[in-house]
């Protein structure tokens, strides 16, 4: 009996154990072989498993491993589950994951934590695969928390720097807030249905066993978990800070795979969300707000990775919008194309940073197009893809999202309009990035400029593959492939004819963004500076990311610490509880001090006291004799 799913999951775990336990003793070459070879192997096994799935015409593969916790007739099992949705995810995770592993070989070359890096990366892959293959929410949650752990470890990979360690901690804790919601959602589901297996949950939802109010509750609570992992408002704050990690990590975890786990979760439980238009509306509103908000912030960031980070938040917002309007398959489609072009962008940014010896500030770049041509071309392709220029990947998926936002039954004009503006902004900030980094005259420091070099072939090769995927990925008809699992919402009556004009409109938005970016940042960036000066207040608010971090610090973290320290520790614990105790103790001590005078050591005084006591006793008992 073969267990392909188990094999897929266990291969990266093996890599983690080998590199984690023996890493420093293996030598660079062996670490590389293990660290990259096993993910590639996992990808191949995954391809085999998906072929097996298709051979069975989409009937899900299930591998039940063991019973985690038995409770009488009920039990919580560990089982893996492959249907078309998880198949798409597994291919993306292992495929893009393998590419990024290979890219890392060049990027991390010579780092003292080389083995540790690959161990963590493999660990991440293990948990991510557990997440997408888990049959029950419990297994998914194991992966969910595990990827958070890997993310924590990798963000703080260079832990000597307190800021980087703090960024890791922030990511973990922000995610934990979401996880609390996730746990509650899980609890409600279990209490209501007595199972956590997601296919069973969807089936129960379809059979009407789940009341609509409960579905809304579950939907919203689980979405709280998703806002943490997928960096939606208000829990988005950790993702930009997470850029402290090595750039391939940003590409793999914080762009292509882990952050999309929230989207996957909602799509996985589509049955629950289909029951609850209210929960879906929450998703749509949060998604579109996040998309817009993050896009505005991305406009003014000067750190190349921060721009991409906010872009990721924004694109995740698009996916959540798609989920919110009921187009779950389209959300997964955008997830896939986004994995391609955003990985390409991040790795391209990594190549730039590599070329510039660690420089990340756009204000000290420029003119790189001729110096590192392969990076430039691939970056440009990915930029065009995310901006939505046809026929690149982003065009198809984003167009579908806007279409269902406008014409879907759960769509609405406002959702569409904000989405469209955001699409324009996306094009604007991405081309701004392209111009500032590659096309404007060089602003590099001379000693940096002298050392600019194209990255090694292991890195550029990956870039080329990803650029090809970004260009052609739109032709993979993911929504159609998933239609049996995730039916697309019906189009509102009378709007079916709007599809072509909408597509043209979307292209116009992308081109408009391109033109605006060229106008503002193309030459010597004077128009942009003038605009920033005119809108100084807005510019400042955007540069400071709407002061969200400051708000959290001032209104949540500090009051919490203040209450814990000043009220609970000093007043309740020390003053009240210990004070009471010490009060009792000093009362005892005081009375002892008073009574001790009697005990003066004089034998005959004691004799008299005994006599007096006896006499008193006798007198007292006399009447009773």
């Amino acid at each position, binding site marked *: 009996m073969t267990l392909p799913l188990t094999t897929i999951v266990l291969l990266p775990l093996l890599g983690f154990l080998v590199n984690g336990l023996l890493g420093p003793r293996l030598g660079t070459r062996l670490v590389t072989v293990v660290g990259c070879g096993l993910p590639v192997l996992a990808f191949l096994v995954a391809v085999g498993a998906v072929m097996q799935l298709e051979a069975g015409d989409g009937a899900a593969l299930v591998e039940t491993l*063991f*019973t*985690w*916790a*038995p*409770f*009488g007739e009920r039990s919580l099992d560990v089982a893996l589950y492959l249907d078309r949705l998880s198949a798409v995810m597994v291919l993306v995770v292992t495929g893009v994951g393998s590419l990024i592993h290979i890219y890392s070989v060049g990027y991390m070359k010579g780092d003292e934590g080389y083995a540790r890096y690959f161990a963590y990366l493999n660990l991440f892959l293990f948990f991510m695969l557990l997440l997408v293959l888990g049959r029950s929410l419990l297994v998914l*949650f*194991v992966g969910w*928390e*595990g990827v958070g*752990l890997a993310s924590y470890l990798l963000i*703080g990979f260079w*832990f*000597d*720097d*307190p800021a980087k*360690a*703090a960024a*890791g*901690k922030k990511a*973990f*804790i922000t995610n*934990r*807030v979401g*996880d*609390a919601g996730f*746990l*509650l959602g*899980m*609890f*409600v589901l*279990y*209490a*209501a249905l007595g199972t956590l297996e997601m296919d069973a949950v969807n089936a129960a939802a379809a059979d009407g066993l789940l009341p609509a109010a409960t579905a809304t509750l579950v939907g919203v609570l689980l979405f709280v978990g998703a806002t943490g992992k997928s960096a939606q408002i208000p829990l988005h704050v950790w993702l930009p800070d997470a850029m402290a990690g090595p750039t391939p990590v940003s590409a793999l975890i914080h762009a292509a795979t882990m952050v999309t786990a929230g989207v996957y979760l909602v799509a996985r439980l589509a049955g629950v969300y289909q029951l609850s238009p209210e929960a879906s509306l929450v998703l749509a509103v949060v998604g579109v707000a996040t998309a817009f908000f993050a896009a505005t912030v991305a406009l003014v960031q000067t750190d190349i990775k921060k721009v991409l980070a906010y872009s990721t938040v924004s694109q995740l917002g698009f996916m959540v919008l798609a989920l919110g309007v009921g187009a779950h398959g389209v959300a997964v489609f955008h997830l896939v194309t986004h994995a391609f072009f955003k990985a390409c962008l991040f790795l391209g940014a990594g190549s730039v940073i590599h070329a510039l010896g660690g420089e990340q500030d756009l204000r000290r770049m420029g003119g790189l197009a001729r110096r590192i041509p392969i990076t430039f071309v691939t970056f440009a392709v990915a930029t065009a893809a995310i901006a939505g220029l046809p026929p690149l990947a982003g065009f198809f998926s984003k167009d579908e999202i806007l279409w269902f936002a406008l014409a879907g039954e759960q769509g609405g004009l406002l959702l569409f309009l904000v989405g469209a503006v955001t699409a324009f902004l996306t094009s604007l900030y991405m081309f701004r990035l392209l111009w500032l980094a590659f096309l404007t005259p060089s602003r590099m420091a001379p000693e940096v400029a002298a050392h600019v070099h194209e990255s090694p072939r292991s890195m550029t090769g990956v870039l080329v593959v990803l650029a090809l995927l970004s260009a052609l990925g739109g032709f993979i008809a993911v929504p159609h492939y998933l239609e049996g699992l995730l039916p697309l919402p019906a189009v509102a009556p009378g709007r079916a004819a709007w599809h072509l004009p909408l597509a043209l409109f979307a292209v116009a938005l992308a081109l408009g963004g391109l033109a605006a970016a060229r106008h503002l940042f193309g030459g010597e960036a004077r128009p942009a500076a003038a605009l920033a000066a005119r809108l100084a207040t807005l510019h400042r608010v955007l540069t400071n990311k709407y002061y969200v971090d400051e708000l959290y610090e001032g209104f949540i973290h500090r009051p*919490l*610490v203040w*209450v*814990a*320290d000043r009220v*609970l*520790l000093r007043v*309740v*614990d020390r003053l*009240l*509880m*210990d004070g009471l*105790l010490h009060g009792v*103790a000093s009362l005892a001590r005081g009375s002892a001090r008073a009574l001790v005078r009697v005990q003066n050591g004089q034998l005959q005084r004691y004799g008299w006291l005994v006599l007096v006591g006896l006499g008193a006793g006798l007198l007292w008992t006399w009447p009773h004799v």
Partner: protein
Amino acid sequence: MLNWVLFLPLLGALGLTVVPAHRNDLTRGLTLAVMGVQFVLAAWLYGQFQAATGALQFETRIPWIPQWGVYYHVGLDGLNLLLVLLTAFLGPLVVAGAFSAITTGVRLFYAMVLVLQFAMVGTFLAQDLFLFYVFWEAMLIPMFLIIGIWGGERRLYATFKFVLYTAFGSILMLAAVIYIAYTVYTATGVPSFAIADLYRGGWSLEVQSLLLAAFALSFAVKVPMVPLHTWLPDAHVEAPTAGSVILAGVLLKMGTYGFLKLGLPMFPEAALLFRPVLMTLAVVSIIYGALLALVQEDIKKIVAYSSISHLGYVMLGLVSYDLMGIQGGIIQMVSHGLISGGLFLMVGMIYERCHSRDLAHYGGLARLLPGYAVFFMLLTLASVGLPSTSGFTGEFLALLGAFNAGWAELPHATWPLALAATAVLGVVLGALYMLRLAGRLLFGPARAPHLPLAGLSRREGAILTALVAAIFLIGLAPGPMLEKTEASALEIQSILNAARPAGGTP
């Protein structure tokens, strides 16, 4: 066999008296051997334990003071099985962990550890209320000496606080025990202290309430539940490492075990009445402990306050009256014993090297002591409740049980659900304080009060490896343990639920 498990440490302590006082190596070796054998025996018993029944196994019952109906009556059931195993497992680790830390009065120290071990196992095994009380009180003396002799600077303050708090609780319990014996005698004419006879004792609600209050106070001090907790941080901070490990690892569980074995099932009607209070206090403990752990600068205090928080989950699980919750509570007891035992051992290791517990003195230990950092991180993650560690299993099942029960009670009362939902906040706060601790200790620029630092020794590595292995075992495959505890947990649950008014929730 069970009696061997119980009396072996006592025999060991007697054996130590013939070891020459200056032969420290012999003393240590003998103690370790005794503890090791005890663990092997306990593990064998665990393997032989039949899962299908909730009845006592490996039972011994011989008259002790027959005139009063007092029996030497010990036995294993699903409630104490895991706790005995935990105690026996921690024993050798505690002993080995103290090899380098305790250098004066070695013989007395190990004798006290052995006596304490005897009393702790006895408390878990006792099936006779009188015997239970004797063991319960007997634990106090060696612990008093361990903190009072080998403790830190303010050890006397800490020991007195510890002993006074616990003695206060014990006296109330004694009064209740006497009253119970008296009523049993007057009702049946036969004196009996057998715990099984005392379930559903048939007292009126008022009497039950008073008795439960006496028991509950005693147990709540031990757990400890807010607001009876202030002895714990002081005791932990002043205790030597071995003392802290035993205190956190086993002693605190006496409180929760007491609720499970005695408090709740002996007085089920009163327990139902007290349930809102107990549940509220459990949730308050979870959050209160976590918040206080967040603002401490002393590493040991952080771990100490985290204990308060973690034992809150145990109480929450137990008073959920849900099978999952009760079992989750039991697992969480074991898990907490392993995790905080491990954390205290690790704090002890760094203290031995640097003589400071002040968090501000440390940083970047991941660079200075990579092996130490790996183990500390693993324990931190277990404490945070990361899935696949025992911390998750315990927390998750306890919370799920509480929530499940709350959901089922929803038509009658909303507070159980509201409390269970509030308790989930503890998950966030737990991450907050533990990552603060780990982050400041392990990451950032490398510094320590005393350089260079010696790497982990083989002995230390072996101790930590054993702990981490146990933590992952419970995290990954709690199934067998849950199976062995299920029958007894079901029995307790049915006793508790029988007290509910008809038409109540299942």
